[in-house]
């Protein structure tokens, strides 16, 4: 099967005004302008196959939204090629819009004053969805999440979680080939996050929709994505299976211990004892990141036990969150 999104050596540059400081600086800006070129996206290439859920990750300002805007046709790349379902997005914005769905977290695209079901009916007309497809989709929604309460509620009266859920439902309504979700779970409570993940997973499975997901929530990544792409400063850092990613750090484990004394003080002492290891503490645990190629977790624990009074302990596999944090910080090239 041919790939659904092809991105080849894409870059996007913005011209940004170098602002001077203070009032005097602002006045000077009026008369002499000094621009610099910022590369928001720098030579990115990837191909995405139909039916994939790809986690598109990166710290704030990494260039994720810019890439998504290029894939949706809002922005034109400065160089390189993008093909979405065989079309160049910015040249065929309207046709491209027909085959994609977009959710930008916290910016609702629904009619503010209308009950959700009325928005759906208008969308049905806009996307020219046949009656049977429309009804099937609604039925399918009902089988995944409880939407009866939502349907007759005006969007403006909804909670953030309900609104996000509604926006996701609306994005999938015309059964698009690809759905872009930009931070869909931002600011939501645990149960709503779980609901939204179930929904996305279910839709992807049943309708074979390709999903591109940007998020800062590693829970989303663990629950949904098989593949992740990480960018920072516009450059691609990583593109592979999530399992492969964990393999990078396969030899790392986290040793967590609890002591009776003040955790902060104790963790500093431990850090002094093991200078090569990374020691952190929170309210309950002191965490020690151990590279087992160099020293065994049990050895570390044995040494600790001799000098500290340990009341409880845990050994944890490295989490996706830790791995990604390491990549952001430059741990993997």
């Amino acid at each position, binding site marked *: 099967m041919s790939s659904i999104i092809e991105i080849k050596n894409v870059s996007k540059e913005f011209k940004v005004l170098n602002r001077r400081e203070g009032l005097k600086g602002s006045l000077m800006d009026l008369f002499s302008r000094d621009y610099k070129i910022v590369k928001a996206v720098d030579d990115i290439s990837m191909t995405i196959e139909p039916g994939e859920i790809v986690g598109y990750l990166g710290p704030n*300002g990494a260039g994720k*939204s810019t890439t998504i*805007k290029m894939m*949706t*046709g*809002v*922005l034109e790349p400065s160089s390189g090629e993008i093909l979405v379902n065989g079309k160049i997005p910015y040249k065929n*914005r*309207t*046709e491209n*819009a*027909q085959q*994609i*769905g*977009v959710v*930008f*977290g916290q*910016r*609702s*695209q629904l*009619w503010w*004053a*209308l009950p959700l079901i*009325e928005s759906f*009916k*208008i969308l049905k*007309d*806009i*996307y*020219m969805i046949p009656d049977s497809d429309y009804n099937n989709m609604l039925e399918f929604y009902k089988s995944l999440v409880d939407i009866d309460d939502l349907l007759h509620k*005006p969007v403006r009266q909804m909670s953030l979680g309900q609104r996000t859920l509604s926006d996701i439902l609306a994005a999938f309504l015309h059964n698009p080939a690809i759905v872009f979700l*930009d*931070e869909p779970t931002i600011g939501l409570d645990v149960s709503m996050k779980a609901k939204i993940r179930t929904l996305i997973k279910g839709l992807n499975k049943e309708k074979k929709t390709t999903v591109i997901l940007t998020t800062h929530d590693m829970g989303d990544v663990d629950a949904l994505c098989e593949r992740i792409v990480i960018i920072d400063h516009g450059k691609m850092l990583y593109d592979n299976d999530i399992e492969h990613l964990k393999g990078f750090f396969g030899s790392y484990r986290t040793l967590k211990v609890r002591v009776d004394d003040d955790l902060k003080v104790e963790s500093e002492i431990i850090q002094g004892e093991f200078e090569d290891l990374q020691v952190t503490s929170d309210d309950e645990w002191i965490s020690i990141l151990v590279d087992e190629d160099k020293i065994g977790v049990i050895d570390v624990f044995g040494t600790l036990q001799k000098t500290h009074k340990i009341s409880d302990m845990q050994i944890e596999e490295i989490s996706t969150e830790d791995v990604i944090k390491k990549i952001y910080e430059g741990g993997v090239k």
Partner: protein
Amino acid sequence: MKKKGIGFYLRIYGKILAQDLKSKMSYRADFIISTIGMIFTNISGFVSFWILFKNFSSINGWSYYEMLFLYGFSLVSITPVQCLFDNNWSLRIYVYSGDFIKYCFRPINLFFYFQSEVFDIKGLGQLAFGIGTIVYSWSRIGLAVTPLAIIKLVVFLITASLIMIALQNAAAATCFWIQNSFYVLDLAFKFKDYARYPITIFSPVFRFIFTFVIPIAFIAYYPSLVILRPDAVPILSWLSPVIGVMFFYISYKIWMYGAMKYSGTGS
């Protein structure tokens, strides 16, 4: 994909409009108060007009009822821009905050989609007021009521509306280039007040500006000459439908050009 023609857009507009009205009616107090407000705005406008003309029986050869006709004509011709294109006033806010991006992902005309979101029902009161004024002055002047005259009136009212819409579109679209287009928009909208007077009362400089630069003379003056002074219609009056369509098209192009180069804010 099927082609999306006028029928498609009309049907969608009808649906959005019906839903929008339904939800507006449900906020009863808001609806009543804003309707009363609009009535008072119209009455006060009319009273100041009336006071002016009680003191001068005619201006530059224009009688009281002819002036009244011009006034009614301008009221009716600005109704469409108020009812159908009111979202232009919010454009700068959407653009500034980055929310404008939400309009960019639908497979329909962006300009249509944006404007269809708001229908301002208050303008309808003004429409009734304007029509009343036209009918009253028409009968007082003693103009004949012929099918041709009615057709002329309707055609030239549409022309005038198009020019008003064009002015507002172009003014609103400036926010794609400058941060705050409110003053431009406000200025454009204030010009409509000058549209009520026969252009001959202005100095030649302003006559030129109001005809060729900011064409507000086409909102009421030139079109109404066709009806009021059928014996001496200047060529510009006959041209005004063409000019109206042309201006509307240009303003639409400017608006779309700005919208297409819009890239949103950071998120």
